[in-house]
């Protein structure tokens, strides 16, 4: 039997961004062996160069629809949208990293390799159009993140979080893989295009195919786990709390985004013909996430845990945009993901900055009177909190507005009502942080270390983007609308 490679559509241009990131990771890994210990910042610089190169390599794919490698990946607007988003998050993470790593005495070169590896996995997930590549992407990013969560090796908290993440993540991967197997068994295809062709065909009665529906259900569980949506969220607060804050910053934003790229491709593009079947389970996930995230966040005094629950709640809002199954809704989802990335990254980045001196800063009592000790940090944190709550003129408002708009057009009233009530609830815990920061400080509070230049720059960029996108959201919404027009 001869193998014919001609029909497979080998097109390295489509995965060039991923290739660049992976090669950078390998080079950083090799260089780490020879570079003097005091010069590890060079590794960060090299990683930055690679990430910027990957952004440049992504741009030519905009406006194209290039399936490659036997339909397992695609170079389209959605992939480019997520490439740029994920790479930017990576760049900002690496800019914040050296100072934080030095402070915790965990400044090892492997850190950058793992961040690059996770980024490559997320990018692959966003470009994946086959069950195999989806799995590959998820595993690549997960394994890197398991190690990163435990990167503060000497801290028991960090080890515990890595262990928890690994065990639960492995469990979720099992669901994912089992679901994929069932879907393959039902449809006889592994590419999303093939699966879509099967479910769309009139004679196949996909809506009544139990095997397929069960498979979709398991797939949803696996992906919802990665997106940290309730009721598959149990790992989130513990892992976010235990992992080094810089890792939490990265993963809270990037993992969720990548997971929703896959969710969009699977549910909106692949299974539109059986939308009535997946609408209800996804609506339940969204509603659970809104309730659990927002209500539990009220009770948390630890800001890392509070933001973890807030992240669960935001996963709920993002899921709401999937529910209509329209490209308008998906565009709102993408806009939400982009704005969530900016504001949540910012909030965690402030936490990282405060924790860079090594003290325990996540408890809300530490934040009392921050406004008088570090006005810059307190001001940007206020902006991020207002944005997460969805108060204009920040980007968080338009993110919610577009989601609500898509729900109104699709006449989905009950989830909308719950989302709105829960948004009112969320005002409480976001504003609580702000109130703590403006409360007159007690005596004897330590003045946190002055943020460095690169840290201040990252925070300023995130804050300006949060307000700037809240005043001029049209451009990014336009990109999101382009990226959301998926079809097979």
């Amino acid at each position, binding site marked *: 039997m001869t193998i014919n490679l001609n029909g497979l559509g080998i097109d390295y241009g489509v995965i060039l961004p991923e290739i660049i990131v992976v090669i950078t990771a390998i080079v950083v890994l090799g260089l780490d062996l020879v570079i003097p210990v005091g010069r590890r910042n060079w590794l960060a610089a090299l990683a930055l160069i690679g990430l910027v190169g990957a952004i440049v390599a992504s741009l030519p794919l905009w406006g194209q629809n290039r399936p490659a490698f036997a339909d397992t990946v695609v170079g389209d607007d959605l992939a480019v949208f997520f490439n740029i988003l994920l790479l930017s998050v990576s760049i900002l993470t690496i800019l914040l990293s050296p100072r934080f790593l030095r402070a915790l005495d965990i400044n090892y070169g492997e850190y950058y390799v793992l961040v690059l590896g996770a980024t490559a996995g997320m990018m692959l997930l966003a470009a994946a159009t086959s069950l195999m590549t989806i799995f590959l992407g998820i595993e690549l990013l997960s394994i890197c993140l398991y190690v990163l969560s435990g990167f503060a090796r000497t801290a028991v908290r960090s080890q515990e979080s890595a262990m928890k993440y690994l065990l639960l993540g492995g469990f979720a991967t099992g669901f994912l893989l089992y679901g994929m197997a069932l879907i393959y068994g039902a449809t006889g295809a592994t590419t999303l295009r093939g699966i879509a062709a099967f479910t769309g065909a009139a004679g196949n009665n996909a809506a009544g195919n139990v095997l397929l529906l069960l498979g979709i259900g398991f797939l949803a569980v696996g992906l919802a786990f990665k997106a940290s949506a309730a009721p598959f969220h149990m790992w989130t607060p513990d892992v976010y709390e235990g992992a080094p804050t810089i890792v939490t910053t990265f993963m809270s934003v990037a993992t969720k985004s990548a997971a929703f790229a896959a969710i969009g491709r699977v549910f909106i593009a692949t299974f539109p013909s059986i939308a009535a079947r997946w609408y209800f389970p996804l609506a339940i996930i969204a509603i659970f996430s809104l309730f659990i995230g927002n209500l539990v966040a009220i009770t948390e005094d630890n800001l890392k845990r509070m933001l973890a629950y807030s992240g669960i709640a935001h996963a709920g809002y993002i899921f709401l945009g999937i529910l209509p199954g329209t490209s308008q809704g998906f565009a709102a989802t993408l806009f939400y993901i982009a704005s969530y990335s900016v504001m949540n990254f910012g909030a965690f980045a402030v936490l990282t900055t405060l924790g860079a001196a090594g003290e325990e800063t996540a408890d809300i009592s530490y934040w009392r009177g921050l406004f008088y000790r570090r006005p810059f940090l307190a001001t940007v944190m206020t902006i991020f909190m*207002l944005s997460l709550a969805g*108060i*204009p*003129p920040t980007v968080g*408002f*338009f993110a919610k*507005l*577009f989601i*609500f*708009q898509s729900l*109104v*057009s699709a006449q989905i009233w009950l989830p*909308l009502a719950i989302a*709105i009530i829960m*948004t*009112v609830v969320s*005002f*409480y815990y976001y*504003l609580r942080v702000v*109130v703590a920061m*403006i409360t007159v400080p007690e005596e004897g509070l330590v003045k946190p270390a002055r943020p460095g230049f690169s840290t201040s720059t990252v925070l300023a960029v995130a804050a300006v983007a949060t307000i700037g996108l809240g005043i001029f*959201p*049209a451009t990014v*919404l*336009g990109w999101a*609308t382009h990226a959301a027009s998926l079809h097979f």
Partner: protein
Amino acid sequence: MSWFTLPTGVPWLTLSIVIPLAGALLVAIAPAVARRTIKQLGILSAVITLALVAAIIGGFQHGVGNLQFQFEETLKWIPSAGISYHLGVDGVSLFLLGLNALLFLIAIAVVDPETPRLKQFVLLLLLLEAATAGILLALDLILFYVFWEAMLVPLYFLIGVWGEGRRVYAAFKFLIYTVIGSFAMLVAILAVAGISFSQTGQLSFDWAVLVQHPATGSWTMPFSLGAIGIQQLLFLGFALAFAIKMPLFPLHTWLPAAYTAAPIPVMVVFAGLVSKLGAYGFIRFNLGLFPQASHSYGGFLAVLATIGIVYGAFMALVQTDLKRLVAYASMSHLGFIGLGIFTGNVLGIEGALVQMVNHGVIIAALFLIVGMIERRAGTRERAQLRGLAAVAPVFAALFLIVSLAALGLPGLNGFVGEFLIMLGAWSSFVPLAVGAGIGVILAAWYVLRFYQGSFQDVPVEPTGFGELRWIDTGVLAPLLALMVVIGISPNFFPAAVEATVRALPVVVR
């Protein structure tokens, strides 16, 4: 007809939002220790804004009706979602814009330079001014909503940080009430645009577009509760937001806490202006976009407004704390404004518009006076104040004028609005006009008791109560002047707003 013509091509309305923002920016970069500079910067930007708004009022063409706006500015904002940056001014918003600029100038002028964290205080006041100006000028519903919500943030901090007593609780209660109303309005906004989209095929949040296509149809409620008109449903969404902000009985329970907690400069704009924005919203959006629903719910809301008049008046009667007394008096007067709006006829709405300006002027003056009394006497308890007229005769004279205006004496401004509203109510709901009349009588009672209790009789010994300083006279003077001017030329406002009011869909129908 206008007094003079302003050059076209200048974004006058945008400027009236941008100048306070620019002032806020200047305050933000000023060093926190330069207290005098900060206050001067605040006053300067408020003065420039006031001059600008005065120019806009002067350049406003009177008698332009038919839902026409002036000084319109339209820019694309988020075209794919049908959202535009559309500003405009008409008879409904014109004088409120003037009130806005005036009251913020006064509020910043009376800020105590020794206020802790003065810089942030002035900064937030200027941000608030920009937001309230935006609310009055925005003609795109989403733009309006953005300003409406943006107004909350500075108010929340102004009450929560600089307030007195249970300030954090009060700020939070106010915030949660308002936000609940706001979200009801947001859903209604989205639905209005969605319905207009299904009728016209054009997605737009522009008031001028939506007013042409009032929603029709009805919705069958689940659990066999019967059917409700879509327009009625949308009306309720908007009404909830505005009724809470006004506040309309029985949604007023945030008011005593917030009004008692807020510092005096904030009260001047909070009671003087922000409460009126709810009434403005009723006229602009509820009466404008949902004329049929306004007729079906107008009577009900007018009853609530009248209950508010009487309830507020009785509550004011039993207060011993002067600040709370004025807070309830404000609620009672806002009931008059609500009653005028919901009569749905020209006289009532005109009266409401006039009374909005009057109420802003009177209540701001009353809160200023409460602040002045408290600073001198160290208390706001009526029982501990006596005979202040003997030691501060000028103060007493000015206060008497304000009191008489507040109780609606003919010849002063309060009478003009109340009279028009009563006329309007008489032609729509006779019993309510009687109820409102009771409110007027009670107003005379509590206002005169306030005056007599604190200013007449023999002073308490020893008295440390000082006469008005020039700055106190200075901030009261423009308000007193307005009370007299409006009182003796009562036809001025109605003439300017009449064309706009006559074109309102609710009146046309």
